[in-house]
């Protein structure tokens, strides 16, 4: 998100899901959309049925490839090289959108120079994608009237994740695919309310509405609103907290509705960190891997038991309504946080229940992006931010009237080649990449407790290309031991051409063979995201 914010002044899907059907060309990179965002994928299939051209860039033969005009099977970790070479080819053919570049962007000259090394031939060598396919992709994308780019964690979960996002943004700028319908740069958010958690200031550097904690005027605004002095010091991102716990400077933590002891790359390391805390509170609906490490566990409520709002990937704020009561003494998370807030700050009456409507109004008063929203309006229709006034209809796509940067222009970035931190070598000859599968969700806390889903996808597996399987002497369904420098798991082989030779894939849903015991916690220097998508492993049959 930091990448997009730097370029455009805002980090979210620029366009809406319904517009996808009207794309003339789609470029899907680092997103296994049919399995991770099945309903967004329906719009992609609709676009293809209407004649749009679909380019899929993915090392795995994901289901979307079946609908693609062109499939670019690049090596894991070479996304920015591929993107740069496509842009180089667009320039070589003179297909760039000169008007858009002149009127709405800055930093173009330096950007063009930075593309120099990225000839299709160089890219073929680095990415494994034939130069002619790179040129073909350039032609398809640049020739389209309305072309959209869609990406997810396959782009971001790398040490050069921010760079990858910058390159994606460059491609949209170079072809003038911003600020209009049915195009744009569209990060597909993986969780129901990850957009909302960011919007609400669940980040170490910003208050609600992406207002920076280290800008004195902003700090003053929130000090006035909340009636206490606030810290102007940027806090620690989650990935940095791990180190701080181990080193002893971070002593107390409160985690709610997250399971980092399973989802963190290099889990052994983060479990050790949580164990070293003086005090850990976990609030969840199940005894998760993280809750097992806690000093206090607080039983929260599922989505079916609470009132509130979620914000979807397309900036759409929607109501969540209570259907049933929570089991036993479990309480809504809002009620629990409210009680702790009152006890810790000494403000407010413990007898009065927290009111989501009042809290939403408080948010709308502090963030202009949702100033025009209220439960009254949301009761009838969901709304997409920005929604500035009570009669504002919400915003289908961003940047219609320029960008939110200081100059009002989008900023081209120079993206050099950065290699993944851990590449295969003699000892660890395979590249491991991780992800989700259709039938499960994240750490499996919910889906593995849903009998049907667990019946069709009962156990962990590692996808191995038939050529590698032959060398290893392994048949489909046989047990393999997969080892990285950080950990070891045993699981069944799934011999499949979905993965290319020398690459293996493991879904990270299964605690009995947790893929994140193997993954690398090397971090992107800007976003502090960990490199869950590429690490080196060895595979043995035993």
């Amino acid at each position, binding site marked *: 998100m930091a990448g997009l914010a730097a370029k455009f002044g805002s980090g979210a899907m620029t366009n809406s899901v319904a517009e996808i059907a009207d794309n003339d060309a789609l470029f899907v990179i680092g997103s296994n959309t*049919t399995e991770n965002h*099945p*309903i967004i994928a*329906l719009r992609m*299939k609709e676009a293809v049925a209407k004649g749009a051209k679909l380019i899929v860039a993915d090392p795995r033969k994901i289901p979307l490839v079946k*609908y693609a005009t062109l499939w670019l099977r690049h090596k894991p970790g070479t996304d920015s090289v591929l993107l740069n070479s496509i842009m180089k080819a667009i320039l070589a053919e003179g297909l760039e959108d000169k008007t858009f570049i002149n009127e709405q962007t800055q930093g173009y000259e330096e950007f063009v120079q930075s593309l120099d090394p990225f000839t299709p031939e160089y890219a073929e060598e680095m990415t494994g994608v034939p130069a002619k396919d790179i040129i073909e992709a350039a032609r398809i994308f640049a020739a389209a009237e309305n072309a959209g780019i869609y990406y997810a*964690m396959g782009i971001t*979960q790398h040490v050069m994740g921010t760079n990858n996002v910058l390159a994606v943004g460059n491609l949209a700028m170079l072809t003038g695919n911003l600020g209009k319908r049915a195009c744009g740069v569209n990060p*597909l958010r*993986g*969780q*129901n309310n990850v957009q*909302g*958690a960011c*919007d609400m*200031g*669940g980040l170490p*550097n910003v208050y609600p509405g992406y207002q920076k904690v280290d800008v004195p005027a902003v700090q003053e605004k929130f000090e006035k609103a909340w009636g206490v002095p606030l*810290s102007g010091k940027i*806090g*620690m991102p*989650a*990935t940095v907290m791990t180190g701080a716990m181990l080193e002893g*400077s971070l002593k*107390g*933590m*409160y985690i709610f509705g*997250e399971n980092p002891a399973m989802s*963190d790359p290099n889990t052994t390391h983060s479990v050790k960190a949580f164990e070293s805390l003086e005090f850990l*509170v976990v609030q969840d609906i*199940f005894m998760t891997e993280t*809750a097992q490490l806690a*000093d*206090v566990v607080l*039983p*929260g409520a*599922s989505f079916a038991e609470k009132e509130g709002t*979620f914000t979807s*990937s397309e900036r*759409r704020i929607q109501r*969540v309504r209570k259907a*049933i009561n929570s089991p*036993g003494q479990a309480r809504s998370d809002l009620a*629990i*946080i409210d009680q*702790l*807030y009152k*006890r810790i700050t000494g403000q407010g009456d413990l007898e009065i229940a927290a009111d989501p409507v009042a*809290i*939403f109004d408080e*948010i709308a008063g502090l963030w202009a992006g949702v100033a025009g929203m209220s439960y009254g309006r949301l009761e009838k229709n*969901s709304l997409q931010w920005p929604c500035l006034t009570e009669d504002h209809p919400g915003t289908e796509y961003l940047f219609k009237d320029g960008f939110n940067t200081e100059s009002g222009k989008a900023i081209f970035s120079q993206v050099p080649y950065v290699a993944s931190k851990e590449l295969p070598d003699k000892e660890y000859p395979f590249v491991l990449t991780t992800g989700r599968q259709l039938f*499960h969700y994240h750490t499996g806390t*919910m889906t593995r*407790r*849903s009998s*049907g*889903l667990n019946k*069709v996808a009962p156990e962990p597996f590692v996808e191995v290309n038939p050529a590698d399987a032959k060398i290893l002497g392994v048949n489909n369904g046989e047990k393999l031991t997969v080892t990285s420098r950080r950990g070891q798991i045993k699981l069944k082989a799934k011999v499949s051409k979905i993965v290319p030779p020398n690459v293996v894939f493991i879904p990270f849903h299964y605690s009995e063979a947790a893929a994140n015991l193997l993954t690398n916690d090397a971090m992107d220097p800007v*976003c502090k995201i960990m490199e869950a998508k590429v690490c080196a492993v060895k595979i043995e049959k035993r």
Partner: protein
Amino acid sequence: MLNLNIDGKDVAVASGTTVLEALRLAGLEVPTLCHDERLKPFGACRLCIVEIAGMPKPVTSCTTPATDGMVVKTNSERLYRLRKTTVELLLSDHPNDCMVCGSSGDCTLQELAYLYGIRENRFLGEVREHSRTDHNPFIIRDQNKCVMCGLCVRVCDEVQGVGAIGFSERGFEAKVIPPFGHDLDCEFCGQCVSVCPTGALAGSLWAGKPRSGGVVKTDTTCTYCGCGCNITLSSHGDKVIRIDSVADNHNRGWLCVKGRFGYEFINSNERLTTPLIRKKKGGEFEKATWDEALSFVAEKLSAIKEKHGADSVAGLCSARCTNEENYLFQKLFRVGFGTNNIDHCARY
């Protein structure tokens, strides 16, 4: 624009509109079993027939394009008789078991039988007897109840792009099956279940659950990925018994396997039901009251802050929980502890 007269009403519609769409724009309705606005017209059930001036026989309105000057009649004694006969023919080999059918009350065929008052059937004869059982955990097929409307086949192909099922055989033997009659092996999105107008397709999870009495429906938002699909929870007491999605929302009523069938975790008996405190490191969890647990947490975190400074505490909020909860959580850390150490799993 095209100008039509339907049942004496003048209506102007865009070129490319079908007669069915035009009559609906005029606020009129005809029965249909095989039509869904989200899919291409199919013309299988023959119930949407209308009379058009100048045409010798009634035509299906769903497949007839509107033309300028068209004069349409949606209701006449003849149309009523033809529609009633069509429903009677459909019922002639339909199991007469609404009493035990999970779709009773949510079945277009049942509604039509009610509308036309069909109790006796003039066409009783041979009845289809399919005896297959499926082994998947999500979808029950009762082919004896299939009316061959083709909605399931079309949604699977046109919307889902999967094509897991198709028509096989002809005439009386015609049926919808997966390739070679094998077991269904698909994405289990359940789109087919959601469009089936009878009890031929149903969700295994809601078989045997209450159909209407005491069932409460709540419109809410799916809890899985960032697509943000609108869903309707059916609950009975404190149990969620079914999930659907209405057709006129931004996800157009389509859901995935997790959204439609992945809700059992809500009523799992592994849910946490009481606060737990571990009094000393390495010890066992002990049950606690809310007051004990909340006071303990407030004291401990405040004491750490007092002793080691504001930045010695941190919070992870949740990409799974509501905006209001996340807002209050970050406010707790910023106001209550004076630290910006707040983050969540956006990076995973």
